[in-house]
C-alpha cells in the first residue's frame, strides 16, 4: 500500500465516519439513527483495517474485525431489539419510533454541528503538530464526532438517541486511540468494549423500566421524579 | 428496499394500447399534434365521472401515454374536460374558465349530465347542459362513461 493510496483510503474511511456521525443529527427516525450508527461502526472498522494494512499487522486487522463486529453488529442489534419491543398498553409506537421534538431543532443542530467541526479542528491542532501524518491529521474528525455525540446526549429526548449519543462518544474515543497511537492493546480495547456493552445493557433495562413506568422514553419526564 | 421489490414484482400494469379510435377530430385538434393539456371543470357533477376520469389517467388506462395531461391552470390548457350539468353557481365560472383558455381551445363534455343534463334535466338549480354555456367539440356518453370511452375521446384530440 503506497503513501497516496493509504492517505486516500484513510481519508475516505474518516469521511464516512464523520458523515455517519453528523447525519445522526439530521434523522428523526430512531431506526434510521441506529442504521447510521451501524454504518459508523463499519467505517471505524475500515479505518482500523487500513491502519493495520499499512503497518502490516495482522493483529490490528483482527482487532478491526472485532471492533467492526461489535460496533456494526452487536450494538445495533441490541438497539434494534429495544426499538422493536412494543410499548406496553395501547401503542404510541409512532411517537416512540421518532425523535419528534428535540430540545434544539434539527436545522439549528446541523448548523451547530458545522461549528463544532470547525472548533474541533482548531483545538486539535496542537495534537496534530506533535507528529504530522495522515493518521494524526484525522484526529479532528474523531474529535468532531465526540462533540457531536455529546451534543446528541444533551439535546435529544429519547433514551435510545441518548444511547446513540453515548456510543458516538465511545466510537470517537476509540478512533482517536487508533489514530494517535496506531492501536491500543487488545486487552484494553476489549475492556472498554465490555464497559460499553454493560452500559448499553443497563440503559436498555432502564428504557424498558421507564416504558413500564411512564409509557414512554422521553427523558424529560424523569424530572417528575424530582418534583 | 421493500418498495423496490414491489415495483419489480408489479411490473407494468398499463394495459396494451387499444386500436386508435376512428371518427373525425375537431378541426382545432389538428394544430395540437400529439399534445393536449386538459383542465378539468366540475360544473355540478355527482363525482361519478370524476372517478372515471381519475381512472382514465391512472396506471391501467394511462391516458398520458397518448399525450394527454391534466394541468392546474386553464392558461396551460388546450381543452376543458367538463363534467356534470351546469349548475347556476357554475355557469359564470365555466364561461370564464373557457375564456381563460388560450386559442385554439376545445371543450369535451364528459358524461350524460354534461351532454343533456341527464336525470337532473329541468331541476331548479341547473342552468342547462354544457353546450348551452360554452361550445362543445366532443362528447363522451355514459353515466358514468367507461374509462375506455374517455380515453378514446382524448385520443381523438391528441391524434395518437
Amino acid at each position, binding site marked *: 500500500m503506497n503513501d497516496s493510496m493509504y492517505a486516500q483510503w484513510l481519508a475516505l474511511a474518516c469521511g464516512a465516519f464523520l458523515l455517519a456521525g453528523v447525519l445522526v443529527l439530521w434523522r428523526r427516525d430512531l431506526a434510521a439513527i441506529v442504521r447510521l450508527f451501524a454504518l459508523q461502526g463499519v467505517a471505524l472498522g475500515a479505518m482500523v483495517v487500513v491502519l493495520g494494512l499499512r503497518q502490516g499487522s495482522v493483529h490490528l486487522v483482527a482487532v478491526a474485525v472485532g471492533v467492526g463486529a461489535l460496533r456494526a453488529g452487536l450494538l445495533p442489534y441490541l438497539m434494534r431489539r429495544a426499538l422493536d419491543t412494543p410499548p406496553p398498553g395501547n401503542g404510541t409506537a409512532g411517537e416512540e419510533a421518532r425523535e419528534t421534538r428535540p430540545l434544539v431543532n434539527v436545522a439549528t443542530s446541523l448548523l451547530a454541528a458545522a461549528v463544532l467541526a470547525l472548533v474541533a479542528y482548531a483545538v486539535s491542532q496542537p495534537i496534530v503538530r506533535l507528529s504530522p501524518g495522515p493518521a494524526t491529521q484525522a484526529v479532528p474528525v474523531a474529535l468532531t464526532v465526540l462533540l457531536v455525540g455529546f451534543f446528541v446526549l444533551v439535546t435529544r429526548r429519547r433514551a435510545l438517541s441518548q444511547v446513540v449519543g453515548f456510543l458516538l462518544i465511545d466510537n470517537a474515543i476509540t478512533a482517536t486511540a487508533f489514530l494517535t497511537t496506531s492501536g491500543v492493546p487488545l486487552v484494553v480495547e476489549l475492556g472498554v468494549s465490555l464497559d460499553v456493552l454493560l452500559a448499553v445493557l443497563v440503559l436498555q433495562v432502564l428504557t424498558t423500566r421507564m416504558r413500564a413506568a411512564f409509557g414512554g422514553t422521553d427523558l424529560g419526564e424523569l424530572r417528575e421524579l424530582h418534583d | 428496499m421493500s418498495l423496490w421489490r414491489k415495483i419489480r414484482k408489479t411490473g407494468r400494469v398499463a394495459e396494451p394500447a387499444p386500436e386508435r379510435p376512428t371518427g373525425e377530430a375537431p378541426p382545432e385538434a389538428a394544430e395540437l399534434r400529439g399534445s393536449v393539456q386538459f383542465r378539468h371543470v366540475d360544473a355540478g357533477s355527482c363525482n361519478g365521472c370524476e372517478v372515471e376520469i381519475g381512472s382514465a389517467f391512472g396506471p391501467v388506462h394511462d391516458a398520458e401515454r397518448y399525450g394527454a395531461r391534466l394541468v392546474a391552470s386553464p392558461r396551460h390548457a388546450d381543452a376543458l374536460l367538463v363534467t356534470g350539468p351546469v349548475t347556476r353557481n357554475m355557469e359564470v365560472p365555466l364561461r370564464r374558465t373557457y375564456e381563460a383558455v388560450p*386559442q385554439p381551445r376545445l371543450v369535451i363534455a364528459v358524461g350524460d349530465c354534461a351532454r343533456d343534463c341527464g336525470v337532473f334535466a329541468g331541476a331548479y338549480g341547473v342552468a342547462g347542459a354544457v353546450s348551452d354555456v360554452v361550445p362543445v367539440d366532443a362528447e363522451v356518453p355514459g353515466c358514468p362513461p367507461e374509462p375506455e370511452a374517455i380515453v378514446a375521446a382524448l385520443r381523438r384530440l391528441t391524434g395518437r
Partner: protein
Amino acid sequence: MNVPGTLLTVALGLCLATALLAPAVPARIRPALSGLGTAAAGAVGAAAGGAAMAGHAWSAWLPDLLPLAGVRLALDPLGGLFVAVTGGVAVCAGVYGIGYARHGLSGRVVQATLPLFVASMLLVPAAASVSTLLVAWELMAITSLLLVLAEHGRRTAVGGAGLWYAVMTHLGLIAILAGLAGLAAGAHGEAFDQLRAAHLPPLARDAVFLATFAGFASKAGVVPLHAWLPRAHPEAPSHVSALMSAAMVNMGVYGIARVGLDLLRGSSEGGAPAWWWLLVLAAGGVSAMYGILQAAVSADLKRLLGYSTTENMGLVLMGLGAAGFFATRGAPRLAALALVAALLHVVNHAAFKTLLFQAAGSVLYATGTRDLDVLGGLRARMPYTTALFAIGALAASALPPGNGFVSEWLLLQSLVHAIPASGVAGAVALPLAVGVVALSAGLAVATFVKAFGVGFLARPRSPEADRAVESPPSMLGGMGLAALCCAALALGPTVIVPGLARAVGTLLPGAAPATGPVSGPVSGPAMETVTLHLSGIAGTMSPLLIAAAVVAAIILLAGAVRMLAARGRRVARLWDCGVGPMSARMQYTATSFAEPLQRVFDDVLRPETDVDVTPKQESAYLVERIRFHALVPDRIERRLYGPVLAAVDAVGRRARALANGSVHRYLAYGFWTLTGLLILLAVIP
C-alpha cells in the same frame, strides 16, 4: 496649491456660500439654490477626490483657523476615494432635493444645513490631525441631527429618532475622542504624520484600537451599535437619508481603515494583533446577517433600506477585517484584494443606496406612506421611478449585471483563496465568512424582490397608492444620475479599480504593485480589457461580457419566439378560478411574503404575533372580526439597550433625590465638595 487642494477649497467655499445665501433668498427659490449649490459643490468635491485618487497628493496647514492646533488637511488616495464618493452622492441628493423640498422642506434651517452637512463630510476624510477630524466629525453629527429633525413637526416618531441619534452619535464621538487622544498623547503630537511614527505599548495600542473601532463602528451602523440607524434613516427627509446612508456611514469605515491600518502603523511594528481584524470580521459578519434578516422581514420601505445599509457596511467590514487579517498573516496580495473588494463595495453601495433611498422618497412623496403592505401598482402610475428602483434593487441584491455583484464577487474571491495562507484561525473563520456572505446575499435577493415586487408591481393596495403620480423632473434627474453611476460601475469596474488600488497602496504599503492587485487593462485581445483578472490567484470574471451575453440571449430568444409564434397577444381577465373579481387585498403583502423567512429564522427574530378573535354575540362559532397583529422587534436593541436604558433611568431617579429644592442643601453640597477636595489634596503627597 495643486489640483485636489484647489478643487476641495472651491467645493467647501461653494457649500459655505450656499449655506449663507440660502436663508436670505425667498422660500420659493430657496430649494433650487440650495440644491444646485450642493450639487455643484458635490461635483467639484468629487473631482477633487478623483484627482487625489489619481495620485495627486495634497496637504495644508492653516494655523489660524482653529485655536491651539490649527487645521491640518491632506488628501491622499484613500481620503480622496471617500471625498469622491461623498461628492457623487451630494450631486444626486442636491438635484433630487430641489423637487423633494416642495413638500414643506423649504425652511431656512434645513436648506442652509444641507450644504454644511455635505461640507462636513468632505472635510472628515480630508482631515490630517486629530483636532481637525474631531471638529469635522462633530460638525457632521450636528448638521445631520438638524436634518434628521427636519420633519419633527409632522410625525412624532421623528423626535424619538433624533434623541436616539443624538445620544449614540455623541457617545461614539466620545469613544473616538478618547481613543485618538490616547494615541496623540503617546505620539506627542496630534498631526497624523506624528501619529504614524508613534510607538505605543501593546496594551495602549489595543485600547486605542478598540475605542476608535467602537466609535467608528457606531457611525457605520454596525451591530450592536446600530440602534440609531433604523430609526434615524427612515425619519429623515429622503435626500438626507440618501446622504446619510450612502455617504455618512462610509465615514465609519474610513475611520476604522485609517486608524487601524494607517495611524497605528508605527505602534504595530511587526504586525498588528490578528484578533483586531478577526473582531472586525466578526462584527461585519454579525452586522451583515442581522441587518439583512431584519430588512427581509421589515414592511417599512425606508426602514428596510436602513437595515440593508447595516448589512452592506457589515460586508465592507468583512472585507476590511479580512484585509487586515491577511496582512498580519503575511499575505499582502490577498490583503490588497480584500481591501479593494471592501472599497469597491463602499462605492457600489453609495451608488445604489442613493438611488434606492431617493426612489423610496419619491414613493413617500407621491403616496404619503412607506408601508409596503399598502403600496403596489406603482408600475403603471410611476413608471420611471419603478424602473429606477428596479435598477437599484438589482444592484442591492448582488445579482449580475448589477454593480453589487462585482464587489461581492471580489470579496468572495479574497475569502475563498486564503485558506493556505491563514492558519488555524483563518481555516475556522473563512468558511463561516463565506457562508455568511452567501446567506446575506441570498436574503438580500429575497428582501429586494419583496421591496420591488410588492411595493411597485401588481395592483395598488390602498387609495393612496392608487392616486400616486410620477415625481417632478428634478427628483427623477437625481435618481437618474445615481442610476447612471450604478450602470457605469456595473459594466466598467475595471476603470475605477486602479484608483482603488492606489488607495489600497496607502494603507498596505508594499502590498500592492503599481498596477494594483486587480490589474484592469492589460495588453491582449480586446476581450481582456473588460475582464477582472486577479493577479496571484486564478480568477476571472467579466461583468460587461455577462451583461452583453444575457442581453444578446434575451434578444435572440425574443426574436425566435416572435418568428415561431402563430398568434398575437391577448389581454385577458386575471385567472381568478372563475369566481372573482379578485380584490387588491387578496394579493400577497410584504408581511405575507416574508412569512416563510420569518418562520425559518424564528429562533433569531422572535416575532411577536397576536391573534384576536371576536365572536358574534349569537354564537361562539361565528366570527365577527379577526385582528392579526405581528411585530418583529429588534431583539438586540431590546436585550442590550433595554437594561442599559433602565439602569440610566434608575440612576437618574435616584439622583433626583439629591435635588430636593432646598437652597441650603445645594450650598452644603458645594461646601462638602470643597472640604473634601482640600483634604484630598492634603493627603496626596
